[in-house]
């Protein structure tokens, strides 16, 4: 976690720097089908995050020795644009983005019916255009919309949210300042219908009680976020319908 600072992140009324209370989410907007070439795509704006996701496949996995004859391989590639953060980021993968790509691939594999596509690969490209804390979770949440948009069979969506500890209090959906100066960060993703957890990472310092509070805040927020995912897809049909009904 980040360094301690003198900035007070939560005021005497329990409000955070951006005016949210502990259990509030930042504004989230998702749009599906934003790219032409990709088989499926989505754009998410979550707080100040701006992330675009493209899905290709299923397509035959290459090189051939990577193929699994029983199932499709899901390959997420999380990447931050050079201009996405205050200091210019050198283009290309680093150790952080390689690790994030791996856990996102695994989370998505849990939802996708990979067994229907032997020898195939599903590529999920996640490009962070503007970063504002919680990029992996925002990217993952948009990814499952893009995968549904591609017409790839899934058991459920994958819906994520983070919680953390700021000024000794557990809060939902950390902002950039809270992420930098907070005491813990807990990103979680679940299959919203069953509550099965498909991604969980944590760093910082949490007591068991704080962990319980954090996860219950997250589980509370999941249906709200899932609703936004669902609307991103259903509104696409209405728009494309051209007044059919």
């Amino acid at each position, binding site marked *: 976690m980040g360094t301690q600072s003198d900035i007070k992140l939560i005021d005497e009324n329990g409000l955070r720097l951006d005016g949210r209370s502990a259990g509030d989410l930042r504004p989230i907007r998702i749009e599906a089908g934003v790219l032409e070439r990709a088989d499926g795509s989505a754009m998410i704006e979550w707080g100040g995050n701006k992330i675009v996701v493209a899905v290709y496949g299923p397509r035959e996995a290459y090189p051939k020795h990577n193929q699994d004859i029983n199932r499709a391989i899901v390959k997420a590639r999380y990447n931050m644009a050079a201009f996405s953060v205050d200091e210019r980021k050198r283009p290309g993968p680093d150790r952080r983005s390689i690790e994030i790509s791996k856990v996102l691939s695994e989370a998505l594999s849990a939802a996708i019916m990979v067994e229907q596509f032997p020898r195939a690969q599903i590529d999920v490209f996640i490009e962070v255009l503007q970063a504002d804390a919680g990029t992996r979770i925002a990217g993952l949440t948009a990814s499952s919309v893009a995968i549904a948009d591609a*017409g790839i*069979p899934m058991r459920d969506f994958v819906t994520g949210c983070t919680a953390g500890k700021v000024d000794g209090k557990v809060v939902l959906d950390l902002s950039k300042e809270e992420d930098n100066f907070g005491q813990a960060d807990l990103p979680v993703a679940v299959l919203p219908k069953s509550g099965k957890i498909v991604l969980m990472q944590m760093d910082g310092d949490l007591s068991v009680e704080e962990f319980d509070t954090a996860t219950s805040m997250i589980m509370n927020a999941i249906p709200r976020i899932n609703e936004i995912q669902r609307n991103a897809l259903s509104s696409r*049909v209405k728009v494309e319908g051209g007044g059919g009904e």
Partner: protein
Amino acid sequence: MSSLFPVNVGEEIMKTREVVLPGDEVSLGDLKARNGLYKNGESKFCSAYFGTIQRSDQFVDVVPFWGTYMPRRGDRVIGKVIEIGPSMWIVDINAPYTSLLHMNDAPWRINPGDLKRYMNTGDYMIAKVLSLNEIKESWLTLKDVGLRKLEGGTIVSIQAPKVPRIIGKNGTMVNMIKDMTFTRIIVGQNGLIWLDGTPGNVIIAIEAIELVKNEAHTIGLTDRVKALLESKKGEIVGNAE
């Protein structure tokens, strides 16, 4: 789930459609689950797709709005040669996997190593899926009525789940577009369509196909396509009226 897309989707069925998203429970009533659903627990069935529910006499299907083509035996598909081996063409059939056409399944007497003379890379064909195995390797044939190398014309692509709408009930939609634009059209079940005719007519036929593609999930589609074609009547070459 034996295949991803139902064979026939008639217009009437579209009227009763209901949009579902992945993981949504679908009630079956007295019907059986077929395509696009998965069993979740003892007796619960859920949608695997973002799509519409379609109920026929016996079955319930979920048809996705978009999606990739998965080959099935007997399907007529439009394919493009992407590589040539000594005795086989390797063919892109708009599926996750390439398909193979052996020279013995082509209508010509060919010597091994001489395949390029008959079909080169980039050439299109209308072929039939002859066989398919568990790991989705498939083989094509050109030996049946109507199967051949495609010459001239052009190719447009739609998504495989929309093919039933382009064809329409008993071929009504595609026949209407053919007749009203004086254009030859072949629809591959893999979502590729071949068209041939005078340039202006082909553009209008493509416009009609685009309309079906963009509004595939709506009702009253045939009427709208008909209205579009009627409005273009003056531009169509060969219109006797």
